[in-house]
């Protein structure tokens, strides 16, 4: 099956959006959710999730705490903060602006 690289800069948006729909997720769940929701078209280079998550921790968009999975394994769960919610709106509107613009360019061409 063919998979597409995700466009640069949209990883944050997707992580934020994913976390906004669920209360808390650990890294693997985030990666899997993105993949499933994109119907397996989008391929996150799975590891790159983690530096991105760290960056978001620094920015205060997400919070992390250790807990256990349903299979009783220790995992770090990430949760959106109010700041992260605000950031999600910013990123989303920004993304839409860009996509609309690109779409217009492509259609008129």
């Amino acid at each position, binding site marked *: 099956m063919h998979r597409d690289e995700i466009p640069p800069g949209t990883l944050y948006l997707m992580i934020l959006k994913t976390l906004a729909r669920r209360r808390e997720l*650990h*890294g*693997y769940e985030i*990666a899997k959710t993105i993949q499933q929701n994109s119907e397996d078209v989008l391929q996150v*280079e*799975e*590891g*790159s999730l*983690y*530096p*991105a998550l*760290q*960056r978001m*921790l*620094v*920015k*205060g968009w997400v919070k992390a705490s*250790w807990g256990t999975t349903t299979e009783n*394994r*220790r*995992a*770090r769960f990430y949760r959106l903060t109010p*700041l992260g919610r605000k950031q999600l709106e910013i990123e989303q509107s920004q993304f839409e602006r860009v996509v609309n613009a690109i779409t217009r360019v492509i259609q008129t061409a």
Partner: protein
Amino acid sequence: MPWLHEFGRRIRMLFRRAQFDRDLDEEMRLHIELREKELTANGFPASEAHMNARKNFGNTLALREASHDSWGWAWLEHLAQDLKFAFRMLRKNPGFTAVAVLTLALGIGANTAIFSVVNAILLQPLPIPDSSRVVVFHEAIPKINLVSNAVSPPDIHNYSKHTDIFESTAAFYEKNANLTGVGQPQRLLAMHASASLLPLLGIRPILGRNFTPAEDTYGAGHVVLLSEALWRSVFGGSPSAIGKHVMLNDVSYEVIGVLPQSFQILYPEYQACVPMALPPQEFTDEHEGDLFIGMLARLRPGVSLQQARAAMTVDAAREVASAPPQVAPMLVGFRIEVLRLIDEEVGNIRQPLYLLLGAVLFVLLIACANVANLLLARGSTRSREMAVRAAIGAGRRRIVAQLLTESVLLSFLGGVLGLLFAWWGTTALVHFAPPSLPHTSTIRVDPIVLVFAFVISTLAGIFFGLAPVVQVGKIDWSDALKENARSGASEIGRRGLRRLLVLSEITLTFVLLVGAGLLLRSFAKLLDVNPGFDPTNVLTMRLSPSKQGNAAQAAALSRDLLARISAMPGVTRASLAGEPPLMDPGNSIFLIHDYHAAANGPQPHADDVATSPGYFAAMGIPLLHGRVYTDEDIQSNNPVVVVDQALADRFWPGQSALGKQIGFDSKGPWSTIIGVVGTVRSHTLAMESKGTLYFPGYYEGMSLVVRAASNPGALAGAIRTQVQALDPSQAVYDVKTMSERVTESVAQQRFAAVLLALFAGLALALAAVGLYGVLSYMVAQRTHEIGVRMALGAHPRDVLRLVIGQGLKLAVIGVAVGIAAAFGLTRLMASLLYGVSATDPLTFVGVSLLLVLVALLACYVPARRAMRVDPMLALRYE
């Protein structure tokens, strides 16, 4: 404040890095395991699932680093790594490290030590508030060659009228006083100050109070402020000193306060301060010139020094215009100078200090060049290491950072050791400082000096660290990786850089050597000067009689004293003189009978000294013509004087001065010149005499001049006993042999010359080591080539010539550039020289020869090594 929270999170991460790494690892491991499990569940074979999961995840090491980078501490982690590595490198090369650190320590230490002096004396403001607004007045009368730091009492009122320019003005004069009534009688120098002086300076007594304007009026209460040191020595630092009474010249004074340290830094010569309280008649014109009054003012805020100068120029012109006709011609060109207090204090020392600072900077540059050379010598081994690092993913920037970290670390190690040197050096500098160096007590390694040491260490590290960095830019990594890559383009570039560095070292050293040579030659010339007197075996001391008697009593007492001292064993001759040479003789203007100074020419003036008859013999001043005065001349009040050759030559060139008449008033009386004695340098050894007048007579407060058979210093105690036997409360002070005074008078020149010579010597040694290093390296690099040459029949002598020729070429070019540089730079020190020109050919030639000779020596060892190259071995080694 989101950024503050963010910063807090970053800091927390920094301190929990180990935990951070563990968490991240666990998280990533879980991820891979879960993916693997899922793949297995989807029917992948175990091994393939594992591989796939890992591959999809990516490089965990790189991801971990990227995660670290997210927190913004990458630079710190890199720095820590670089430092760790740099330490390891230095430890692995202890010889290299020791040489480099020591070289740098010498350079940084010398700079820091000299800077601590410059900082304390030139850069620190005076220890009083707003010191830049405090100015002093000097008066200059070109006609009699006089520049005086004193004004006359009437001037105080005149200058103070400029209230639009001066916020306040103050004045003081100094006077010796015998302190009695508390412990041993001692002589002190008291400052007689106007009540406005301490407030103007912003100096508050640490105990008690300042005196009031009411106390600063003639005949008012006698009050005194003591210096802290005097207060401690006399009253043991007890607050109960306030209100006690002390006797100054047999007059009772009430102690009202103790002066702070800042007063002692500004005026170390005064131990007490009393009100000036001048009698009103001092302010009339007849008394002008009786007292030497120092005058200060504080400029109003916003008033510039130029404005004050302009106002005083107008004043001076008015004073000349309104002068009485008989005085006016003398006042032509009269100036009132206004200068900042700090400039008065340090004006003369500024140039030699900056000269020394420049010299140590040169030494540091040479040290840096040497270390850069050492680093370059390691370059070829290092370039392979660099190539390996580049191959496994280090960016060029990281490699440069690594190299700079190493050199700055080296430089800091040198800086730490250098601080130790500086600490010793500063102590030694203060100890050997000439008396003319002001406020030496404030010289220390203080925080500003530490910052200076830190900054120059960093700069030095970057400076010499750039040499290998420049090379990194040129290295072809793939070339460097090859096992035996020896003489690529980078190697040739490195050789050029190394030569350039050595060339600069030789040039800098040449300039330093010329500077030191010129100062040493000046100093030697100064010591060669014939002072006009014979300083050996002469003891001098100042006396301060406590009783005020009439002239006859003073003369009788003086004769008695001289008779007693002359009778002492070991004394050849005893005499009294107003101001012996090198003890600040006075200046007087006189008239010559039937002689009229040219309208624009200088008024006759000379140093004047009153002496007892035996003075010329005691001081060893030769009689050239006529006779010297005798005690009979004094007893019969014969109007006779003796002049020196300089004065005779000036006014009666080509004829005898004997029988000529001079006086101080055109109405007479006139005194006859009965003798001409040798010219004496009475101010400093460097200053030629403008003429001296000797008067016979005995006065109070003359100094004792005693010629001994040998070892004059040993007589001091016995002479003091004789003095005090006649007058128990008489203070004896400033006891020194003439030889000591001669030494002191050239102390500043000696200080500068010795220090500069020391630095130049250091530079020479460093440059020699540098040259030696470059040539040794060249020989080692060219062993193969030399072997081939010898195998082809080259004589060892040719090899010797080859190596020495290389070194000599560098030395000669360095000297040539050095000559050009020195021509430009020594001009700046012309005013510090005595008897030699700034481009003294002898010094230039001598230094060139010395430098070439040292270069030859530095070449010789590597050249010998090259000569001994065994062609067989050299070829097989390849």
